[in-house]
């Protein structure tokens, strides 16, 4: 039962990846839709970022003094000025760890 549901979930996931690339003719999309699609990264990734910071493992909001908020602010500042992905990730992680383990 678990195996068959994994396979079905895999097929559905593959279809989410494949449908727009292989089955839908790009010309069906008008110019306006294409212009809006340029915003996809900015319109999708915050839905991963915000809950990853502000909501804990139990599905409730974190306190405003949670170390994750501090880590995220450090990562945003470091990322903005350094333009470096590794620096962004590591500065966020280390500033978060410093607060949980030292303070």
């Amino acid at each position, binding site marked *: 039962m*678990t*195996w068959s*549901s*994994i*396979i*079905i*979930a*895999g097929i*559905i*996931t*593959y279809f*989410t*990846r*494949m*449908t*727009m*690339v*292989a089955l*839908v003719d*790009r010309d069906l999309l008008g110019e*306006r839709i294409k212009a*809006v*699609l*340029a*915003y*996809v*990264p*900015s*319109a*999708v*990734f*915050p*839905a*991963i*970022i*915000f*809950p*990853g*910071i*502000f*909501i804990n493992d139990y*599905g409730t*909001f974190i306190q405003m003094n949670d170390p994750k908020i501090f*880590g*995220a602010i450090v*990562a*945003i500042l470091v*990322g*903005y000025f350094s*333009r470096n*992905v*590794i620096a*962004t*990730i*590591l500065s*966020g*992680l280390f500033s*978060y*760890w410093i607060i*949980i383990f030292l303070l």
Partner: protein
Amino acid sequence: MFTKKQLLTKGLLSVAPHMFSVIPFGIVCGAIGIELGFSPILVYAMSIIIFGGASQIVFLQLLSGGASTLIAVTSVGVINSRHLLYGAVLSEYLEKLSFVKKLLISYLVVDQGFAESNKFFQKNKNEPYLHYHLLGSGGTLWIFWQLSTLSGIVLGSFVPEEIGLKFAVPLTFIAIVVQDLKKLDHVIVMITCGLSSLLFFDAPFKSYIIISPIIALFVAALVLRLKK
């Protein structure tokens, strides 16, 4: 003009920095599966069959929490429906490929690979072998996802939960969008998406992950109209 090999390498290098997030998350993902009591083969098979980190964790958590398989499968579909948006963006650059090649390369469309290859595509629209960049980025992510979830399965309960490795996930996506904070229209779209995701977090089947992008894209359409 770049050769195929150059594009493959560029794709690989573009996602390499994200391994600082992908590897810890993969380890956590494998370890959670074992801790929830699923068999190692089953937990690992998901990395090949589904190949989508967040959805793999949610699937196992739902099943172990007693949810029906229908709910678990639906949740995976809803969480991964964001790939439809990635595909719509990428189709412009992949349209010259044969149908079979489109079918094959689709398997490798994942968040960070899409993000980095899309950035490259926007600047190099006229390259003939663009898909090799996606092959490099997606292929690299695939290999490291397999290795890291396997490591997590082997390490199992040795992976300490309290060090918060999952926090690497939002950080990797901050690194992807942070330069767009320079553009007001993008900031508006990002804040719309982020606030919507918190507002709709409790919506069924984790649907906040597709509801908030749709709301944000509507706002993007409004912004475009105002800019004219």
